[in-house]
């Protein structure tokens, strides 16, 4: 109630008038009432009423925070957080080594960044995740939908269809091996058409469209509450050309990162970004580093770098608050990313164990 008038979210002109008239705290405003206020500073009664409503809401919010109330605050004990984290699902990538170094898969409510040289598999992994997020819960998935924001134009529907077909087939094999009611029921709704219809695709051509889309994302996610994954494929591309003012770029990127963190937390979804690599010149040598500068490195919680070592693709976990830094080799097959040297042979049904058990640890349940 002792809140300073200057800190209230009113329009600047109104604020200036209130301060000039001598008002100092919010309490004074509320005591004066709309009629008195309108007479004293010379505004209409409706405007005064509007201003008082804003002030009242702000003070109510403050009171709730100081009294330790629920709702808009994000306060909880570490124990509650632990319980939440343990029940939270991961979005699996179908590459067991990658899931292992990530600690189970791509985490919800966190931002994961994938950097890599061109052609290394970033878009493939994003398409894979957009399909895997839809796996029903009885198969170990999160049963969510996906938003795919594409800035580079590298999303290929046919490839996504291939990956989706393989995923459906995999789940069908599990269901056949372990005849359970809920599996068969889930399979009825888990088909190629339903997977593709739940990938919401936005094609942003420049950074303004990207900014606009991210501003509109909270409303979209409130309407489609089942979305559990937001992929932005190519966050670097629109920001890398036509920017003479680098400080503007840093500011816009930071704002973007903040909004994505809020989206990830409020809607309990994972945010996956892909970044390019750029050449940085040292004394006599140049090396490849993730693009968008040093400060962007703080935006993501988890950072994966995909790179080449001659002919082998490698994935390195570069930054993570809970997992150790490590590198694994991987390959891209017709169907999905796969740990190197393990070829899946999808055999016919009639096996006591899941035929694809070599590819994912969660399958070993069956």
């Amino acid at each position, binding site marked *: 109630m002792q809140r300073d008038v200057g800190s209230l979210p009113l329009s600047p002109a109104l604020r200036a008038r209130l301060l000039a008239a001598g008002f100092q705290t919010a309490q004074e405003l509320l005591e004066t009432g709309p009629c008195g206020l309108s007479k004293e500073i010379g505004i209409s009664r409706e405007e005064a009423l509007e201003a008082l409503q804003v002030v009242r809401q702000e003070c109510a919010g403050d009171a709730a925070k100081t009294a330790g109330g629920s709702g808009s605050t994000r306060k909880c004990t570490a124990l509650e957080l632990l319980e939440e984290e343990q029940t939270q699902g991961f979005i699996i990538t179908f590459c067991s080594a990658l899931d292992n170094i990530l600690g189970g898969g791509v985490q919800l409510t966190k931002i994961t960044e994938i950097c890599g040289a061109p*052609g290394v598999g970033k878009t493939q992994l994003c398409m894979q995740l957009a399909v895997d997020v839809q796996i029903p819960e009885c198969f170990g998935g999160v049963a969510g939908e996906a938003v795919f924001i594409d800035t580079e134009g590298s999303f290929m529907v046919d490839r996504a269809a291939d990956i989706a077909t393989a995923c459906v087939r995999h789940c069908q094999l599990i269901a056949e091996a372990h005849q359970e009611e809920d599996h068969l029921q889930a399979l009825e709704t888990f088909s190629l058409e339903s997977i*593709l219809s739940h990938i919401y695709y936005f094609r942003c051509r420049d950074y303004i469209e990207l900014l606009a889309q991210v501003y509109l994302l909270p409303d*979209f996610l409130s309407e489609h509450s089942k979305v559990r994954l937001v992929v932005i494929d190519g966050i670097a591309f629109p920001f890398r050309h036509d920017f003479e003012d680098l400080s503007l770029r840093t500011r816009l990127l930071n704002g973007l990162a903040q909004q994505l963190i809020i989206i990830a937390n409020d809607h309990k979804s994972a945010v996956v970004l892909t970044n390019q690599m750029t050449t940085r010149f040292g004394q006599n040598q140049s090396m490849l580093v993730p693009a968008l500068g040093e400060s962007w490195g703080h935006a993501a919680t988890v950072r994966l770098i995909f790179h080449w070592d001659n002919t082998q693709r490698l994935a390195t976990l570069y930054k993570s608050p809970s997992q150790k830094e490590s590198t694994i080799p991987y390959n*891209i097959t017709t169907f999905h990313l796969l740990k190197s040297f393990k070829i899946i042979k999808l055999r016919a049904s009639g096996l006591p164990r899941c035929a694809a058990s070599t590819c994912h640890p969660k399958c070993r349940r069956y």
Partner: protein
Amino acid sequence: MATKKLRRAKLSQELCERLSRYQITTCQDFLCLSLLELMKVTGESYRNVQKLLRKVSLACAPKMQTAYEMKVRRSINPSAAFLPTSLHSLDKVLHGGIPCGSLTELTSPPGCGKTQFCITMSVLATLPVSMGGLDGAVIYIDTESAFSAERLIEIAGNRFPTYFDSDEKLFCMTRSIHLYRELTCDSVLKRIKSLEEEIISKKIKLIIIDSVASVVRKEFDTKLQGNLAERSNFLARGASLLKYVAEEFSIPVILTNQITTSLSNGLAIPADLVSPAHDLSLSEGASGSGKKESACVTAALGNTWSHSVNTRLILQYHDLLTRQIVIAKSPVAPFSTFFYTVEKSGLVLQDGKNLSNLPWEGTNPALQTIQVRNTALGNALLKTTDETPGDTPSP
């Protein structure tokens, strides 16, 4: 669109006037400001400013489509998704051919067959849909003056003798290939900007730029300070304009690139200064020096350009007669190689000698090594003759 004026974003008239006093007239200006700045210029409260932001964002944001809708649209018109190259094994691996709606890059050492390939694709695009073409016109932007109309007619006549049986059909085909000779970066960029209108008026179905690298390397000397940034800027702008056009009209765009030498200790940039004449001699260092400075020949124009193109095909030398076409980067195809020769009818695949697909090989498309003619010639000569090393090109 970013340059949309605010009054078309359905903001009130007085608000637009007030904002224009602060030089904020387009959506871009509006969205680049922070919330506090917006409060100051609009004079509105926090909540109202957020509502305004949402209104302006709605005006700029792209439309949503589900992946299923995209697939259905593709399946209604399957032939419109790819342009078959008439090299059957290549088409099979690429799931149909050169993809429509994205950029395809063709890189090779000089004389390997880039322009031949481009000329063949021009012919194919003018063919009717029943023969695997796109039944449309072609825009050919030539920066090296390498296009030869006689070769065009020769390829057409030899590749499809039954179709081009009359002069009239040949003339009809040549009339639909629009050739532009652009010799500077600026004119190339201007031409790319004018593409949108030309595509609609002339019913264009294929765009070829041969080659991007030659104008860029001529004008931007990366030794000079700041030129590297300008070069990347030009390339990025060109790439995004071409991508917009390709996607909007769902047509394929083929670009050609040159080669450069990349020294494997990471010095890719100074090596770019090396003129094409030196490229050949430096490439031999790969066999000679071993550890310190093994150089390899790779695609030019740098790392960022490799990100911008969606598909990369590399043509390289194999031995005296045969060459190889390599799929180095593709969102739908694994890394594969095919052998071909250049003949009267254009490129012809050597089906018998095809290697089986090697899905595990291949490396960073930006650093994929390319074999140049010198090594191929050198090997061939050493094999066939007993001459002293003095007669072969000295390393």
